[in-house]
């Protein structure tokens, strides 16, 4: 069975260009629900609105009304005789959306950015909870007293006396420079 549910096709078309579906007779194994839903025949050429496929495998409208058919006949003659509306009608027979319509901005980025900020915020709450309920108490070596003793010992040892740590301490006056 080579059929696809119409709902799935609509979803794919709205996402514009699922690369998996080439139109050269791809066979799709699909589950049938008692044969009630309408399904697309995947064994014939399909129409896609894709930015990188300017000429899809078949025209958009393949079942033409009588007016369309007569227009197609007129198209076989000189094109100067076609009015502007007729040319537009011919275009719309061949294609569903123009490039301008395909490239229309969707505003999806606002949703994406909003989602990103939301989840970063949520993560912030999780981290905050962690700080109060998960972390063990600080090691005693981070107390101010201990840090002061540490700094004094580093200065006594003359750590980096040329350009670094001890260079910034004034040993005569006992203060930072």
């Amino acid at each position, binding site marked *: 069975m080579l059929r696809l549910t119409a709902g799935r096709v609509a979803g794919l078309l709205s996402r514009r260009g699922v690369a998996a579906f080439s139109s050269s007779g791809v066979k799709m194994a699909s589950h049938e629900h008692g044969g009630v839903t309408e399904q697309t025949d995947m064994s014939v050429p399909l129409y896609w609105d894709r930015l990188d496929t300017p000429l899809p495998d078949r025209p958009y409208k393949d079942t033409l009304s009588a007016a369309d058919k007569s227009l197609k006949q007129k198209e076989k003659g000189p094109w100067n005789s076609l009015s502007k509306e007729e040319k537009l009608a011919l275009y719309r027979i061949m294609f569903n959306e123009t490039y301008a319509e395909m490239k229309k901005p969707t505003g999806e980025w606002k949703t994406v950015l909003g989602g990103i900020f939301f989840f970063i915020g949520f993560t912030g709450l999780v981290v905050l909870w962690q700080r109060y309920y998960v972390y063990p108490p600080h090691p005693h070596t981070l107390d101010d007293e201990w840090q002061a003793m540490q700094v004094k*010992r580093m200065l*006594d*040892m*003359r750590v980096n*006396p*040329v*350009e670094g740590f001890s*260079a910034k301490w004034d*040993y005569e006056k006992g203060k930072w420079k």
Partner: protein
Amino acid sequence: MSLAKPAMRGLLAKRLRFHLPIAFGLSLVAAAAFKFAVTEPRKQAYADFYKHYDSTKEFNAMREAGVFESVRPTGK
């Protein structure tokens, strides 16, 4: 309407002719900047430090502070 034929060959060569001198120039500038902003001041700092450095005095100061294990501070 006939357009001019686009360049088909020598595209990399053309790009290199333009970008290589710039790349060399910028690298030399970066090296010179590092030399004069970092290494020369550093050499000067070391020279100044050791010009009036009394190692014995420093040693005794460190000894009194009690950071050595081989010599205790005087008076112990």
